[in-house]
């Protein structure tokens, strides 16, 4: 099977959707850091950050879905449906495409734990969410290694994304100033007023 059996438009769509997904995921990470840092202004409430973080992530997932489906449909890649989940099975540049599959698996885990947020422990959710800091560089390397646009505008887009996520990472690592706790100060656990011991 060769590329000739798949319309060329699929290839265009795969490249385009991958690049847009990279931009959107970079924005999602940036918005996530804005949220964690609790930044807000009079014209930008934290609700806006939270809503954008979620919705840009969902949009990125849509483009990622297009990217993955086109990668399967394009027989030149030789990915197969199993290869969508299991890395390094593709015919075309198995290592570079495989890194994309690894990143996709992490995205799936982040998405699943976020959709089931109320049913997952906070710690589990956060641990999986930290996986995005692995996912993003892996996805970027996948884009540079497997992509066919890395010498043209794709490189500039990638550099822009590196600048954005790099800045976000630096900001994330700066320690927070202590936020005054406006809720009730912690007290010792409640003490009983009276007790009746058991017979035993």
């Amino acid at each position, binding site marked *: 099977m060769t590329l000739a059996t798949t319309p060329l438009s699929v290839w265009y769509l795969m490249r385009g959707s991958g690049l847009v997904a990279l931009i959107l995921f970079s924005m999602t990470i940036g918005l996530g850091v804005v949220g964690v840092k609790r930044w807000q202004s009079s014209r930008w409430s*934290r*609700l806006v950050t939270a809503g954008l973080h979620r919705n840009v992530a969902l949009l990125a997932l849509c483009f990622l879905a297009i990217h993955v489906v086109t990668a399967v449909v394009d027989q030149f890649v030789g990915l197969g449906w199993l290869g969508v989940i299991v890395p390094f099975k593709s015919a075309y540049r198995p290592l570079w495409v495989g890194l994309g599959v690894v990143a996709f698996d992490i995205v799936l885990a982040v998405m699943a734990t976020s959709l089931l947020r*109320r*049913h997952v422990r906070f710690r589990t959710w956060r641990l999986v969410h930290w996986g995005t800091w692995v996912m993003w560089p892996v996805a970027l390397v996948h884009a540079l290694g497997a992509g066919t646009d890395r010498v043209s505008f794709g490189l500039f887009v990638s550099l822009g994304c590196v600048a954005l996520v790099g800045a976000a990472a630096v900001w994330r690592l700066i320690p927070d100033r202590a936020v005054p706790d*406006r*809720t*009730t100060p*912690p*007290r*010792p*656990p*409640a*003490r*009983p*007023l*009276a*007790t*009746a*011991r*058991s*017979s*035993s």
Partner: protein
Amino acid sequence: MTPTIAPSRPRPPGSARGGPPAGLPRLLPDGPVADRPSLARHLERLGPLPAPGGLVDQVDQAGLRGRGGAGFPTAVKLRAVRSAAGRRRPVVVANGTESEPLSHKDVTLLGHVPHLVLDGMVAAAVAVGAGRAVLCLKEGSGATAPVRRALVERSGLDPVDLEVVEVPARYVSGEESALVNHLNTGRALPTVTPPRPAQRGVGGRPTLVDNVETLANLALIARFGPSWWRSVGTTEDPGSMLVTVSGGVAHPGLQEVALGTPLPEILGRAGAGPAAGILVGGYFGTWLTPAQISGATFGWTGLAPLGAAPGCGALTVLPETCCPLAELSRVADWLAGQSAGQCGACTNGLPAIAGALARVVRGDPDGAALGLVRRWAAMVRGRGACKLPDGAVAFVLSGLEAFAPHLAVHRDGRGCGMTGHQALLPTPQWRTS
């Protein structure tokens, strides 16, 4: 308003002396008031709590639903806690905080028959394998003294440790996760669920949190069995319920009614006057019009078609002599002030809704403020750690619906002339530190 027990029919002779009460009241005792709460009097009336066994199935057969407000099937909760037990011994928490200003049934029940509630705590603890049962009361509750005396009487007599703990007075501090939080950290504020207390509660142990009236019913089921318990009420809604009737009634106070009793009968017994609306279930409840309740019976089945539920059993009559919108607005303000300040939708949303509602009362010719109330109500619903936003929104929206004719009177800003009348619905000023 001082709660009184409504006079009930005289008990047929020979039904007392440690046997199952025939008819009503069954939770609250009949007869002379003196010496009522003592252990000796309690045992004389109902006999000893039988050796435990199979209580969960009995509660299931009885069809007991929680009396704290949500009406959750008690057997399901008991099973959840028992199956979550594993290596960790569960804890039982009896909720007697009664933060609802329109309800006095829990404090009255505890004041008159503290031992029935303590029996229920013991029976529930044995049923789920708990070694410790904690009774939570509101700070300064009238039930504290009788409960403390009751605990002294029972020292060394029960198979489990019994404790009584006071919880700061605040509307949300009686929510089950807030009680668990208070017992664990001293902060009586709701926490995000899951995990629910049944999974991870006091000290990380599976915790059964039940209202005190629910536990009193449990003690009756343990003594006299499910078929006796079902002899009162309807097939769908068996049993009795303590109902606090307040507002525009000649005889405010407590009634123990069979579920399925017609609402007009309950209100008639309390001597209700002409009403603009009736609030069913306290500030977490639903406003109904006199026309709506005229054919309704009290119970989950009877109230469901009207979009209402018995809740905590509070029935409040709003007389025609006060402005329902002013009352609605004042209570909405108060509910907004009861927010624990933990969740954004509640902290910001409830005061915004209350503010817009105040504008509706003052005059809202273009309906803009009313539109904001509806819009923001939809936005806060279902959000936050506890159900305060949902409760406040249901209170406001059902009120706007029930008082729709009155809404038109206020539209042009001239008011109804009753806005300044004396406040009717209570808004206790608790020290919310």
